[in-house]
């Protein structure tokens, strides 16, 4: 019942993820951070098999850092997205990574961008994206309320509406959510939405 979603606003991109770590009927923890800060201006929200999630996201993060040391400049968001897709595609017919990713980034030349990357290496550049059972509710809310060039407040209001919908309509809804934002000042944690203490 994991849920990750994101959207692009005016000069920023937002990624929201639930923070539950579940095994069958047991909730291991409800403050698991599933949105990795890939580098100074990229966020990667990942959902799926926990082991694959950690393995894949850490692998991508180290390779993105290596690129920067080798070449003196960071990867663009588009390049990072394509790198991830390539890795997922290569592993797909041998040892697939069961991870779905929403990649948000800010590039100086092109501004904010959002990429939808699913576990069978689909790559789409989008304005709004969502994964998991929660996506049925989040995408519907975003389809109705999203408009281009939203301000941060408008986007947060929309994110909250999505979270409320998930909480009220999903049978085993995740309890807590984390919201992270990336803009020209960098990628950072924005806030949490909690119903239970950690």
């Amino acid at each position, binding site marked *: 019942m994991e849920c990750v979603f994101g959207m692009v606003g005016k000069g920023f991109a937002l990624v929201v993820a639930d923070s539950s770590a579940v095994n069958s009927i047991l909730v291991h923890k409800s403050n698991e951070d599933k949105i990795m800060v890939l580098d100074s201006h990229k966020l990667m929200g990942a959902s799926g098999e926990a082991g694959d999630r950690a393995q894949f996201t850490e692998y991508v993060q*180290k*390779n993105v850092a290596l690129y920067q*040391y080798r070449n003196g400049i960071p990867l663009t968001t588009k390049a990072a997205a394509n790198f991830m897709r390539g890795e997922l595609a290569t592993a797909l017919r041998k040892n697939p990574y069961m991870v779905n990713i929403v990649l948000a980034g800010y590039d100086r030349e092109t501004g904010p961008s959002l990429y939808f990357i699913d576990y069978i290496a689909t790559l789409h550049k989008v304005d709004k994206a969502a994964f998991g059972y929660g996506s049925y509710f989040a995408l519907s809310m975003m389809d109705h309320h999203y408009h281009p060039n939203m301000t941060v407040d408008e986007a947060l209001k929309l994110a909250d509406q999505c979270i409320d919908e998930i909480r009220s309509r999903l049978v085993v809804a995740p309890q807590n959510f984390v919201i992270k934002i990336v803009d020209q000042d960098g990628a950072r944690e924005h806030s949490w939405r909690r119903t239970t203490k950690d």
Partner: protein
Amino acid sequence: MARYDRAITVFSPDGHLFQVEYALEAVRKGNAAVGVRGTDTIVLGVEKKSTVKLQDSRSVRKIVSLDDHIALACAGLKADARVLINRARIECQSHRLTVEDPVTVEYITRYIAGLQQKYTQSGGVRPFGLSTLIVGFDPYTGVPSLYQTDPSGTFSAWKANATGRNSNSMREFLEKNYKETSGQETIKLAIRALLEVVESGGKNIEVAVMTKEGLRQLDEAEIDAIVAEIEAEKAAAEAAKKAPAKET
């Protein structure tokens, strides 16, 4: 003797590995490089040949970052350096991936030296023709370190060292003048050592300063300013030496 310097794997009768010694010769012909360790700063300085006017100097960075907290300067074959630096950068990230910790300076030095040693004991390959100066702060204790490796694969830690062209003169200068310094004083000491063998001026030296915050490359104007300070101090010292003699 000539019969024992073809294949690297062959010892000469008097216990020399000639290929390794020839590699050290290549290092001695490379540009001068100096490293000085202070209490809160470590400085790397490298000689820059200013004869190439049409070259875009930004594409020839002689002091490179291996990770956020580790930097490397080298003397010798620059093409070999590229290969070694690439392997070291991969190892820095690989270490972070497998143990979730940044490398210590000693670890990455041991890795680079190990790589250099491997190529002195394999068939059909030649050693890397470079010596490296590796600096950094331990990510946990914050202790600064300076290490040197050479083509034979040996490494050790130093308070200050030099390699490349005229390294003996620089090392002699450092042995005479080294003392525990910090901040700007460390930078000045490194540049003074370099100026012993290099033509004076900001465009002939590349200097980078490693602090806990990271690596900072000094730009030409900054280096010129420090060089001017050093020359002024030298002139003042000369004048002070002459003045007492006049009194008698």
